[in-house]
């Protein structure tokens, strides 16, 4: 017992402040992209996922991007990745980065905010990805991040959940389980698509084995990344319930 107490003392208090000024992705990390329009052809040709469009309406679709950096390596004069981690959006279209300002995720309406703002329980369904998104959701539950202090927790049953957080491209083999989980949740309920796979299929877009999130399950929050950094996930969830502006 005394050893456990000594270890506790040595390990110290390790929960990070959030949000706090100056928080950024690591120096080599790839965050919010910045485009320099008009010279995107070379960068677009380098993207293996068609996430970059040159021409009339240039844009980088963060929903399809797996943040591999191939475009910025091929044409550093056209695309730049900043260390900004606030990447979440409320609409699918808002994930497309153009030369206009990026519109960050908005919070739920006042009614839902009153319901979920102080206590928000999430059921996570893992549906065909590589399990890195799951790992970065799990990390939010460790003492370093302490998701619980914001009143947000992962619930063991859909019956106890206010929100559904989906990861993976939704394989055909998981489609039914996802539908059943959603149906088992009581209304009102919100849906979060976490990671490039859940948003667009990610690296598996177009695979015949993948079905995607069915249209009957409407998404309220998009968290881009492959996988998204825990900072990005936390920021998105807290924005959704109106805990950060």
């Amino acid at each position: 017992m005394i050893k456990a107490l000594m270890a506790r003392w040595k390990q110290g208090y390790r929960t990070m402040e959030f949000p706090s000024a100056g928080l950024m992705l690591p120096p080599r990390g790839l965050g919010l992209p910045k485009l320099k329009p008009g010279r995107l052809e070379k960068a677009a040709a380098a993207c293996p996922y068609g996430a970059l469009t040159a021409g009339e309406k240039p844009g980088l679709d963060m929903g399809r991007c797996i943040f591999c950096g191939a475009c910025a390596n091929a044409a550093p004069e056209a695309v730049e990745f900043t260390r900004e981690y606030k990447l979440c959006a409320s609409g699918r279209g808002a994930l497309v980065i153009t030369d206009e300002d990026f519109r960050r995720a908005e919070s739920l309406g006042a009614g839902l905010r009153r319901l979920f703002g102080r206590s928000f329980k999430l059921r996570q369904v893992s549906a065909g990805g590589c399990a890195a998104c799951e790992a970065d959701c799990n990390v939010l539950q460790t003492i370093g991040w302490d998701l619980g202090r914001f009143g947000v927790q992962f619930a063991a049953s859909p019956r106890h959940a206010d929100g559904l957080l989906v990861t993976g491209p939704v394989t055909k083999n998981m489609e039914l389980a996802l539908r059943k989980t959603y149906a088992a949740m009581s209304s009102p309920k919100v849906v979060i698509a976490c990671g490039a796979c859940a948003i667009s299929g990610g690296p598996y877009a177009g695979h015949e084995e993948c079905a995607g999130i069915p249209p009957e399950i409407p998404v309220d929050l998009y968290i881009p990344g492959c996988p998204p950094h825990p900072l990005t996930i936390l920021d998105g969830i807290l924005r959704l319930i109106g805990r950060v502006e």
Partner: protein
Amino acid sequence: MKVEHLSGFDFGAAELDPSIFFETAASRLASGGRALAYFALPEGEAHRLVMAVGFDREGRIEVYSTQAYGPFRALTPSFPQLHLFEREIFEQAGLKPEGHPWLKPIRFNTPGAVPGVADYFTVHGSQVHEVAVGPVHAGVIEPGHFRFQCHGERVFHLEIMLGYQHRGLEKKFIGGPDGRSLHYAETLAGDTTIGHGWAYCGAVEALSGVNVPPRAQILRGIMLELERLANHTGDLGALAGDVAYLPAASFCGRLRGDFLNMTALVCGSRFGRNMLRPGGVNFDLDAALIHELKLRLENTFRDVQSAVSLLWETGSVADRFEDTGVVSKEAAEGLGLVGPVARASGVGLDTRRNFSSGPYEGFTLGVSGSGDVYSRAYVRWLEIQKSAELIAGWLDALPAGPVEAECGCLKADSAAVSLVEGWRGQICHFALTGPGGKFRHYKIVDPSFHNWQGLALALRNGEISDFPLCNKSFNLSYCGRDL
């Protein structure tokens, strides 16, 4: 034919007459060989069965192949380690292994197959009952379906049905390498990005004949060992959590993140994405980064030591860990288990030693155990110490020079077997090229492919309440197995 790990070879020379093929395979497996891969290669209307066998003691690989037009002789009755390979051949190519005890689907990807709906092993009798869980579980984890066949609290057998994560990866390599191939490898199992990424790069490098510069090899070693440190530390924390020993659980959960952040310091991604490229690596370390990494490694390792030592000194932890989920050495060898799980049962296989190359020349690590949860935990602690020592040594003596070499076209009609000791165990990528030097077939064997059956064995005669603990002590990948 004999093959060297990590060098391309002429595949045509591996062909044998069918009867000789099965005799050879059986005699080699009986004399200490272990199947690294066994699959059906499409050839026009027909198929060719290909088997790669590893001889761990000599660090040698042999490859045999034979034409197959229909049913073939199952070797599973004599060599249980082949059970999943033969089922996979049946599911993927429709060739029936005659005499296989049970051709239960693996990935439920054939027309009409419904995931989780298949014949499964059942136990009958009064007071026998069945508990079903999944595919959606209570925690934030991957999907799988489990059925416990029980008598009271006692588990006679655990039926495991997976396939929910199947997203059609292997066939997407065919026609490559292209801009996506490496990403497929990196996302085979997200927590093994470096392991699978390296196995892929190794195969491409072997087929193109490029030599990876020494500095790049060491940088890869650093990343692979960081991956091992993060996952082993996380596993020890999760094991502590499952026996309700919260101090070690919460310390290790945080420390795992510290290792991931060290990985991110090198390449920007906590999982090592974008670090590797065929021919070398994308990121180098300068003096300042080396200094920072050394400092972080020292501090984090010290904290891990203090957190993990609590486990061994706490009676209630030892009481739950000891004698729970025992897998005997015979069973581990028979099933072809790999990685820390096998080492905890006393099987001396470690790719870093048995098939050592690059930065692992001269690698040694003696491990043995009694096959219970305690051994599987303790082996991880031994490996954590070794990985920290390796990284510290490499950071002190990083060779100068470039970190990448130009990787040219792949040799036509060739093959390569690439092995890497990922944190879960041996990873095998078997790449074959066609006449144009493009992938004609690509076979992936994740360590979990071998090890899931080990978990079922560990549960035999245990209690349902032992399941979370046994499961964590294996911590297998669903996506790596389902592909």
